[in-house]
């Protein structure tokens, strides 16, 4: 194997064969090393949540990631390819250029496509909660496991988890920051999050006219998950029922929540 | 890869000629070989297919019915090919072709027991240690110290009692002379009660083996395969030559 091993001979056969072998070994080792180094670097640069989200984003169905400009009616059917990070998206920049000047007042709430809403507070913090649609899909029976005060949440990482029995589903965190307060079931499950460096950038979140079409889009997605004979039970007095899965027998809370809350 | 090689041009080239008209199949060579090479007695379940017989005497029959049937006994061992098919297939150089003697040697301590060499050998001359070698209590004191015992799980074969050559060379060197032909003879040659086996250096034109090696009644088994065996056989019986040239096996034997 090596020149210093007894019986080794320098000849063409040996050189070619072992040359190939060591090349293969080096390629394999290099490949694995590259993956390991990249992973370590992601951790070192605290990008691991972003990388993790990137890995999961691929696994989301197309229907689960509509482009905000499609929702706003500005373009035809289009799917997000940038993990909802609109600042990385050339298309978004182009659309912003087109729409320049039309910008109105900052809205009260911003929505992440994982059904978390964000409300900027006056002290520079934000409040994060789950929107009405999401809350009704999760239902009142579920219990939330909120991060402790002082913990950090990462954009597109886990905001908090809802638990029902053995099943659990996470709510995607819409922003990165440190949890400074939270509220329980009675207050409607919320987090108060303090920015870490500089003010929050909420540009990737849906707002204003995008929200309603998105909600309709989400309703359509929900209906696709639910058997047809159950559709009529979903609404009562024109309003959606409080616990969607409880109203349809054979409907899997875990599956429905994961689909709606974007957990592959 | 395993194509024919050059005829070795080393100092010596040992070969053997076996006279099939003399061999009466007594089996003394087999026993002498086993004793000399520290082969353990057969375990209870061993048979002619899985035992360690570095040299085995096969009956070869003319395929005709009694009383026209004839048979000769063919002592079959490693044919010490000049182009050994077993050497090039061994994945780890456990088979060694000695260019100074033409002897193909097996290094049992390097063998991992893949048995590829046995598949490659057309002479079925290699044996595998299917069992741990076991001697009846005390019998290990009769082992030959010139050769080590082998463990289970390795292949082995005849090497023309190569250790005898070492011993003879040491003695000759000590006395400051060349090895005489009669000093280095494998155990089977020595044991053959009818002198059917002649062994010696083919490069030495005066050796007994060189004189009969090219005899008109001498032939090698499977020489068309290009293995260039250094063991040749002799017989004056025409059917023996015919069988050796194009024998068709007769029947199936089931044992499992």
């Amino acid at each position, binding site marked *: 194997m090596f020149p210093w091993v007894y019986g080794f001979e320098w000849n063409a056969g040996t050189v070619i064969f072992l040359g190939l072998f060591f090349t293969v070994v080096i390629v394999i080792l290099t490949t694995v090393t590259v993956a390991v180094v990249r992973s370590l670097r992601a951790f070192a640069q605290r990008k691991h949540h972003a990388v993790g989200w990137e890995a999961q984003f691929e696994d989301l169905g197309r229907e689960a990631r509509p482009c905000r400009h499609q929702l706003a009616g500005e373009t035809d059917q289009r799917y997000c390819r940038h993990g909802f990070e609109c600042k990385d998206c050339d298309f978004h920049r182009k659309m912003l250029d087109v729409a320049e000047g039309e910008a109105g007042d900052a809205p009260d709430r911003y929505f992440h496509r994982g059904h978390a809403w964000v409300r900027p507070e006056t002290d520079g913090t934000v409040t994060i909660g789950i929107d009405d649609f999401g809350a009704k899909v999760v239902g009142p029976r579920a219990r939330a496991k909120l991060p402790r005060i002082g913990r950090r949440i990462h954009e597109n990482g886990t905001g908090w988890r809802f638990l029902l029995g053995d099943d659990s589903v996470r709510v995607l965190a819409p922003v990165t920051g440190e949890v400074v307060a939270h509220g329980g079931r009675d207050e409607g499950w919320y987090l108060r999050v303090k920015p870490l460096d500089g003010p929050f950038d909420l540009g990737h979140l849906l707002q204003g006219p995008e929200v309603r079409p998105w909600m309709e889009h989400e309703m359509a997605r929900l209906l696709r998950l639910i058997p047809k004979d159950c559709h009529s039970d979903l609404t009562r007095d024109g309003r959606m029922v409080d616990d969607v899965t409880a109203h349809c027998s054979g409907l899997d809370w875990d599956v429905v929540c994961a689909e709606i809350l974007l957990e592959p | 890869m395993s194509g024919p090689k050059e005829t070795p041009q080393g100092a010596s080239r040992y070969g053997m000629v076996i006279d099939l008209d003399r061999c009466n199949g007594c089996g003394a060579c*087999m026993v002498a070989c086993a004793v000399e090479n520290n082969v353990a007695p057969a375990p209870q379940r061993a048979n002619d297919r899985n035992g360690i017989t570095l040299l085995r005497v096969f009956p070869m029959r003319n395929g005709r019915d009694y009383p026209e049937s004839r048979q000769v006994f063919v002592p079959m061992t490693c044919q010490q090919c000049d182009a050994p098919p077993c050497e090039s297939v061994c994945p780890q150089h456990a088979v060694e072709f000695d260019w100074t003697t033409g002897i193909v040697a097996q290094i049992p301590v390097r063998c991992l027991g893949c048995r590829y060499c046995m598949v490659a050998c057309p002479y079925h001359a290699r044996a595998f240690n299917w069992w741990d070698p076991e*001697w009846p209590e005390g019998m290990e004191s009769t082992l030959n110290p010139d050769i080590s015992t082998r463990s289970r799980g390795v292949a082995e074969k005849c090497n023309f009692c190569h250790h005898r050559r070492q011993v003879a060379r040491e003695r000759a060197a000590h006395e400051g002379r060349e090895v005489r032909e009669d000093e280095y003879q494998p155990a089977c040659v020595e044991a053959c009660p009818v002198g059917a086996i002649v062994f010696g250096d083919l490069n030495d034109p005066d050796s007994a083996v060189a004189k009969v090696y090219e005899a008109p009644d001498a032939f090698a088994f499977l020489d068309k395969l290009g293995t260039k065996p250094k063991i040749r056989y002799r017989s004056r019986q025409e059917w023996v030559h015919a069988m050796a040239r194009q024998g068709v096996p007769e029947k199936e034997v089931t044992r499992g």
Partner: protein
Amino acid sequence: MKVSRRDMLMLLGGGAVGTIFSPIPWKLLRDSSVWTQNWPWIPVPKRGAAATAASACPLCPSACGVRVRTIGGRPVMVAGLPDAPGQRGALCAAGSGVHQLPWHPDRVRTPLRRVGGGSPGFEPASLEDAVGAIAAAIRETQGTVAILDGRPGRVLGGAYREFLSGRADTCVLVPPSAVRASMPVLRKLHTRDPGPLAVDLDVVDTIVGFSAPLLDGWGQPGLVQQRMHEGRLRLFQFEAVQSRTALMADRWIPITPGTERAVALGLARMLIRSGRVSPAFGYADFKAFVAAYEPWTPRRVFEVAGVDEATLTEVADALAPTGRVVAIGGGDPAGGPLPFEDEASIQVLNLLLGAMGQAVKAQRPLADDPADAASDRVATRDLCDVPDGSVGVLIADLAMAGATVPWPILARKMAPQGLLVSLTPVLADLALHAQWVIPTAPAFTAAHDCPGHPDLPRSLRLARGFTPAGDEVVDPVDLLNRLGTALGIERQATVADALDDMMALRLRALHRAGDGTVFVAGKDPVAMAEIDSPEDVLSMLRAGGCWRTALAAAASAEEPAVEAGDDQTETAPPRPAMPFALEQVAAKDSGGLVNGFQMYLIVGGGVERTAGVARSPILSKVDQESGLRPFANVARVNPATVASHGLRPNRRWRVSTPQGAITMRIEPDPTVPPGAILAGAEPQGALPWNAGNPVDLAAPDGKTWRLLPASITEA
């Protein structure tokens, strides 16, 4: 400090990578490599000073000279002794492993007493108990007290006779195949016993073999084959099976199994009718002799034996009555002797061909050889000639017999409550039937004498002891002494206290007689008369020498016929009458199958099978790992018979004979005649592969077992 999951992972990963670059895995690899090359349970050969010693092979009456390689005094290899007279360096397979016998797995280490009824079991006992029990049995028995001496001619044989001579109704028994083979029958063909006879192979130029295993157990196979190759010996072989001898013979004439007699008689008739009879053959009543042979016309021979007239004529023509022709019957050491009638018919040929005095000569007995002690007072008898149920106490010593004695033959000779004592180094074969087993020294542990083959010129070699025998071994002479004391027998002066002393006595006798020559490898032969002292003889024999009588030197074709006794010489006197029993021999028809049996079971296998109880396990290389020798549990059958009887080789078959049955595997073998089954004989239980014992199936006459009527059915 708080250890996170990430830290753990880093630690594990770092550890894994770090380990590769540490010496640990490499050291482990190296150690595993060394370990797998030196498994502790694989023995390592011991080293020591190498030396070579000469000795004799004690396994069979051929008594071949051997060269023993020793390491630190331990024998590690045995080969034939080059230039040895009579043998020319040849050694059979069994002899090549003889040095391993002291470690035979079935070695007896203490006297054993039989316990239990059905299945044989033994328990250790003291020698005192054994002596007491045997002495009591000898005292009380109504039957004959006998010692079965498997290897007559040893000094031990003299001690046996001395012991028995103190009592009435005793005899020394000899096994049927070893001695009754050929020459004793020839002696019986004379009106007056010419004494022991021997074949002088050095002057013979033609042998007519009748199933004789000339290259496979009879006499000196190496010598016979080498002389054949030198072109100095011609061999015509009449045999049913295409045996080794048949294959190597100049002419093999296949015969119907069991018809040796018919061929011999037919051949004799041809010689007589064509007038080619030795002038030394002179019977007074020649006409009656001719009349007895007249029915054996070529036609009848063809009908009985399947040998046609042309072939028979051809052989007869080749046999000029020169005196250098000898007909040999004998028998297979494993398959037993030919029936007496066959032997007699064959030996008549020797008379007709004038072999007596030329190819066959008388042996000279030595007057005061302790090996012949008390031979006038104690009868020596063939085991088969003893009346059934007559032996009260039998001490069997078959360790060096080199031939098989089937238990049924022995069993029928024993009295109902008879006591069988076995003197054996190995618990196997007949010892399994004994009431007492006395451990004796296995080959290569104690020095002893090795007399040569009884059918060849007298010879003697010494077997040396290489490995200490151990305290547990009982010297047979010591056993006899103790028995004598227990029985109150007065000791004879000639009986020494131990074998070593007896050997010295024997050498003194040989030296005093001054007969024969001592051959030592690498040196010129020395006539016994020229050797100064018995001690010199001893040292020459210890050096691997061989003493041999001077038969060959004295013989020539012109010499008068029979030399009998020491001084009487007959010049071919006309014989007064036809030799005994010849009418019956000639009149009795040959062969024939018993009702219900359509096949023959031929038992054979040569001497290598029968060295038996004293056979090294390494012989398994030949027996088990090659199909060279017939097995007890394998029936070799002609392929045509396999096909016609539907004998499927992968099934087990039951071979029945009038004496019993045995389960066998079928192996097609074209060298076996159609309608016959060839099987080997082997001692019972000696080695693990012995599955059965066809020699349990002795022929109905209770004397032979070479050929048995048989039938075969699926087991």
